[in-house]
């Protein structure tokens, strides 16, 4: 099982909190606090968690849009070379930026309002000199058609499109540089449900066509279930459970995953929801609880949970769980 394309080890990102005129550091927001994950080539890894758990920070740190506080990120290039992204300079990263691209959450703020679709989509081609001048237009045409837009849309400005169409422009822009890995940061959360399905199907089709690998960040469990091969669940800057999609959804091993799954709405009027209501709020990432970070809200909490932070443990089949009682607990997944 050594066909990983990206590997992250003990990734940490602490944002300092500065106060006063002299910017004294009074504390840290521990947005990402020791994340380990890997993505295999050609698969989709879904990263789920509630707002503020650090999903987006993980994504942006992997792309080095934010510099990590600690930890290592490796990337395997097309030729099989292993590069440590976390120690490269921005200049050295530039060729990698062609291979690793990003799709943004909000299609309204991620497209420059002053650029035409042509300018937007051709920008990565120009930055990386991927096509001679005369061929850029043809290339943009092909890309637009690949994402379901028309070639004559090229001269228009972003404001002339709907949210779904804009997101397609964003996808075309990401594809423009022939990437291998695409980081999709909540690509459908800003869209209407009916449009979400279209965009998800498009992403799936493109994955097959261009042999892409996705890191798919979302807070929507059903969306992640639909698109992902493997799923990682994040809570307060840590990954609490990761495994194949069906294992996570049908046989969760972490109480937090169980609670999340119980909250998925079912399209069945006779379904009696058996929701697990978590106590209290998500603790602040500024001073997270000692021990297991989920302990103040967990219904199965024991003494050990308050003292020791559990590590990710292998449960077989690539299913890893960070819980002291992962073997004992019988947890419910989703019921159809």
């Amino acid at each position: 099982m050594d066909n990983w394309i990206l590997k992250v080890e003990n990734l940490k990102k602490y944002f300092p909190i500065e106060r006063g005129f002299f910017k004294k550091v009074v504390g840290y927001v521990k947005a990402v606090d020791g994340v380990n994950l890997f993505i295999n080539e050609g698969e989709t890894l879904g990263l789920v968690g509630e707002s503020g758990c650090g999903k987006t920070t993980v994504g942006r740190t992997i792309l080095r849009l934010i510099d990590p506080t600690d930890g290592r990120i490796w990337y395997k290039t097309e030729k099989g070379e292993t590069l440590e992204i976390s120690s490269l300079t921005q200049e050295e990263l530039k060729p990698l930026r062609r291979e690793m691209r990003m799709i943004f959450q909000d299609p309204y703020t991620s497209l420059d309002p002053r650029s035409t679709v042509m300018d937007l989509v051709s920008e990565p081609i120009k930055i990386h000199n991927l096509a001679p001048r005369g061929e850029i237009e043809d290339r943009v045409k092909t890309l637009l058609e690949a994402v379901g837009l028309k070639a004559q849309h090229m001269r228009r400005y972003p404001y002339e499109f709907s949210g779904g169409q804009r997101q397609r422009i964003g996808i075309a822009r990401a594809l423009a540089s022939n990437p291998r890995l695409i980081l999709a940061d909540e690509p459908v959360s800003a869209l209407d449900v009916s449009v979400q399905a279209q965009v998800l199907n498009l992403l799936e089709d493109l994955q097959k066509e261009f042999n892409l690998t996705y890191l798919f960040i979302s807070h929507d469990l059903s969306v992640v279930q639909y698109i992902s091969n493997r799923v990682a669940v994040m809570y307060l800057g840590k990954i609490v459970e990761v495994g194949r999609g069906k294992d996570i959804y049908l046989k969760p091993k972490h109480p937090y995953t169980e609670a999340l799954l119980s909250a998925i709405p079912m399209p069945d009027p006779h379904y009696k929801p058996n929701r697990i209501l978590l106590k209290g709020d998500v603790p602040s990432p500024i001073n997270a609880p000692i021990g297991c970070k989920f302990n103040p809200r967990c219904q199965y909490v024991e003494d050990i949970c308050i003292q020791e932070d559990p590590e990710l443990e292998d449960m077989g089949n690539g299913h890893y769980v960070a819980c002291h009682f992962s073997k004992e607990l019988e947890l419910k997944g989703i019921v159809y």
Partner: protein
Amino acid sequence: MIRKKVENLTEAERGKTYFQLVWRSFKKSRTAIIGGIIILLLFVLSVFAPFFSPHDYYETDPDKVYQPPQRIHLVDHNGRFHWRPFVYNLRLDVDPFTYSRIYREDTSKIYHIRFFVRGWEYSILGIHSNLHLFGVDSGGSIHLFGTDLQGRDLLGRILIGGRISLLIAFFGSVVTVIIGSIMGTISGYYGGTPDMIIQRSIEILQSFPQLPLWMALSAALPKTWSSLNIFIMMVIIFSFLNWPMLAREIRGKILSYREQDFITAIKEAGGSDARIIFLHLIPNCLSHIIVVLTISIPELILMESTLSFLGLGIQPPMVSWGVLMQGAQRIETLGQHPWVMIPCLFIVLSVLGFNFLGDGLRDAADPYSKR
């Protein structure tokens, strides 16, 4: 009907450029259109000043000192109506009791106003001519705004003065905008030490009392310099004092754009700082920059007038509105020869015009925001 629909479609397909959108919403603002017309008019009047002035504005005449504006008549002193408007020459008299000068209309001869007459020679942009929009037959004179202390035609002097006043304001704003945008962009985009240095120097510049600073700077200009050198130095002084405001506004804009996703998207694609600044940040600030440009022009017109009024700006024989206002410095002048205040009217008019225009542009400059 169907035909119209098809046309609409093709137009939508093409996509409107930014300036088309701006023009579309600009047209809707009536004050902005009025402002634009005023500016255009003043511009044409001052560029073609000699064409619009019947008398040579450099020609002095001791017999016409402080001559009041001549009235345009249609009915002569006998009560006869003339289809063509005419003026009477003014004759200088001395009041037998107060010994003050009095101008009386010499009703013995009528001077009809004629259009496109040949008169004194001039050259505009290298074209020599003696054609004037209007004038009177030789022997007569027509001073619609009166004359000044040396008997020079005030109308002509106001028009030619507009050239310098508008030019200095325009160049001053352009230089202001260039310095301001560069400083603001560096400050906002790079942050840290450059930001610190620029912001502190702005604070120092702005903490000087304005008038004494202007005066000190302009007093430092050698009196022996040619008018052109003085003009260039004035432009530099004005923009040197004016850029901080613009730099701060641009910095704010850049700061807010810098963190937005569409800029992150370019960084993520591997775009350089230069690409981000010149292809994305500046175009997005452009509307703002244009508005600041139109708003800072009237400020500079006023600045120039103030300095020239105090005798520190443009030096005669160069004429600007501020220089013309020098004639209105003494209270005695204002009482007896109120027409020397007419340049003031032009200053007010141009300031209002630019403000109207700037207001309309500010609303129009962001056509995407209303959607």
